[in-house]
């Protein structure tokens, strides 16, 4: 198992993505992609469904990425990655890493069936879901992971009424080799978790909370700040699940020692998408976070 802890000094200077890609300014995904590729290295094959990553990787005939990448249909990411892995096995090229990289809509909604099946079959690849909490690439429509109250272009007046789907927990319930959650605000933690994931055989799932200035309604410069707020207020937790055991990791592990966490209000107020959220909802959300952390302290503290 990999024990290396990544820091800005030992992080490779080699870049695997060309400058001048098509990501929006302040995009959480572009940070993740750049750092993620540093962890994965060149001996990788990407499988990508429609998502912001499709656009970011470039429009034909120009590509921002230096890694071979297969663009596939929306629902088929994990199945296509299975096919790539099967071909590599048949051709004796098993050392090449297969990485499926999709958004939250592509994972929690249309892609969940093929992903669930791939985990059940015990496939050997890494699935990364960057969760910016809506269909951003099509212009900010609600997805299964959009939180309650959030404005999207198809919840334009009332905000999303339902709560979000807890995707990493659903994936962990399939008992894959490894599940981890990350935040784009903590890219080195992501780097470490990728290193760990690729050292393991079997299905690995990494879920990343990914701030999106255009979709969340915030200044581009606040992408990392807002991402950190979500983690430090205990809303989005960074953890790993191995052999059915969940362990808080990175900045979330440090929160265990604290008796109280910052209130969630600051995170919500930083984003215009939450302008329709009622006081009542905020209180309810805060109570949920508090109860969750109380449970964590009892179980892991």
């Amino acid at each position: 198992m990999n024990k290396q802890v990544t820091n800005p000094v030992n992080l490779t200077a080699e870049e695997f993505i060309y400058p001048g890609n098509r990501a929006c300014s302040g995009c959480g995904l572009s940070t993740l992609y750049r750092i993620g590729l540093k962890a994965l290295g060149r001996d990788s094959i990407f499988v990508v469904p429609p998502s912001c990553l499709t656009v970011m990787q470039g429009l034909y005939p120009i590509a921002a990425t230096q890694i071979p990448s297969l663009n596939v249909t929306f629902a088929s990411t994990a199945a296509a990655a299975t096919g790539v892995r099967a071909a590599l096995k048949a051709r004796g090229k098993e050392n090449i890493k297969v990485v499926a990289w999709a958004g939250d809509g592509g994972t929690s909604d249309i892609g969940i069936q093929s992903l669930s099946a791939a985990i059940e079959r015990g496939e050997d690849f890494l699935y990364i879901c960057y969760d910016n909490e809506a269909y951003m690439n099509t212009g900010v429509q609600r997805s299964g992971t959009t939180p309650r109250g959030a404005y999207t272009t198809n919840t334009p007046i009332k905000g999303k009424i339902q709560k979000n789907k807890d995707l990493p927990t659903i994936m962990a319930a399939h008992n894959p080799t490894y599940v981890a959650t990350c935040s784009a605000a903590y890219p080195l933690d992501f780097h470490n978790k990728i290193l760990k994931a690729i050292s393991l055989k079997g299905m690995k799932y990494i879920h990343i909370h990914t701030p999106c200035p255009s979709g969340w309604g915030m200044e581009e410069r606040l992408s990392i700040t807002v991402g950190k707020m979500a983690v430090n207020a205990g809303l989005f937790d960074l953890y790993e699940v191995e052999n059915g055991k969940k362990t808080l990791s990175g900045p979330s592990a440090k929160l265990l020692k604290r008796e109280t966490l910052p209130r969630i209000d600051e995170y919500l107020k930083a984003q215009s998408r939450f302008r329709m959220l009622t006081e009542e909802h905020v209180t309810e959300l805060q109570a949920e976070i508090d109860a969750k952390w109380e449970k964590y302290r009892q179980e892991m503290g």
Partner: protein
Amino acid sequence: MKKIESGNVAAALGVKLAKVQVVAAYPITPQTPLTEKLSELIEGDELKAEYITVESEHSALAVCIGAASAGARAFTATSANGLLYMSEQVHWAAGARLPLVMCVVNRGVGAPWTVWNDHQDSISQRDAGWIQIYVNDHQEIIDTVIKAFRLAEAVSIPVMVCYDGYYLSHTYMPFDVPDEQKVDTFLPEYQYKHTLDPQNPENLNTVTMPFARPDRDGVTQPGYMDIRHNLHEELGTAIPVFEQIDAAYKEAFGRGGKPIMSDYRCEGADYIVVSMGSLANRIKDVVDELNDEGVKVGVLSLHLYRPFPREQIIAALENAKGVIVIEKALSYGNEGALFGDIKAALYPCEKRPFVHNYIIGLGGREIKQADLYDSIKASCTASENFEDVSRWIGLNR
């Protein structure tokens, strides 16, 4: 080696001889015995391949798309709603120019549910950009599966081998299993021009603009429409390529010679019946009977439906007085799909034969020899007032 086996087993043995490396399939009647046989061959180490037991047909073709994109020979099979469920992937595989082979064990499409045979499933996918071949018997199934891989790989276009559910899939017939070493020579290991290779990274199936754009070296590369035009043009080239491949197969195995269409008593015939699949075989008996009565009628069994062999169709039919298209599928709200294609092909002919259309056997509705006889005879003896509409044979009324 001679065998007496089902059509599904004939297909599986063809896939085995083709040394397929990745198989992905989801069960659907009447395809299941084919994929069960493949599971048995792979688990029993008779075929060295990866078998992926996917959760849906959409994923079955996705696995094949991933596998072929990473340089492996891949196969899947399905029927009816399974084919429709993977329809997005069917189009994708053709656009991505992947040399896949898929057996479509033809079955009617729901709703209402039917598990019995007609051709609506594969006919509904005719515009996806695949090559479609319809076969008549078990020998043609196994031979065509092998030829299909060589064809797909020669033109970088996927091939559907379509055969009738139950009529062919579940009946037992004798057929010859080609010699493995000879198949290895006929169908050598395939080297892909473009694969997912970290040594030479490419971004495959990228978003492509309506207009042509320059690459990083300033060389103009095609836009979406240009790429699609290439697919269309190269589908056309598949006709002579298929003829060459069939000739090579005949030289090696002694069978073949009529890959595009096979004709029975068509020479000098006044009337020609056109049909596809096992139905064309059944019509031979009716044709014999009518010839005994002095009606000069033959039957043309069309194998290659897409790309549509327009020139060959014209050559085969233009001198007839009449053409009778009998088919198991239609374009709802219009007419038989094959009928429309045949009429369009014959339109520029100077001495244009009449073309009649009969729809038969949908969802496994019994096809009676007497009905075939009556219909063909009615067309052969029709007056000029015979109304040019699609006639449904065997309706319960």
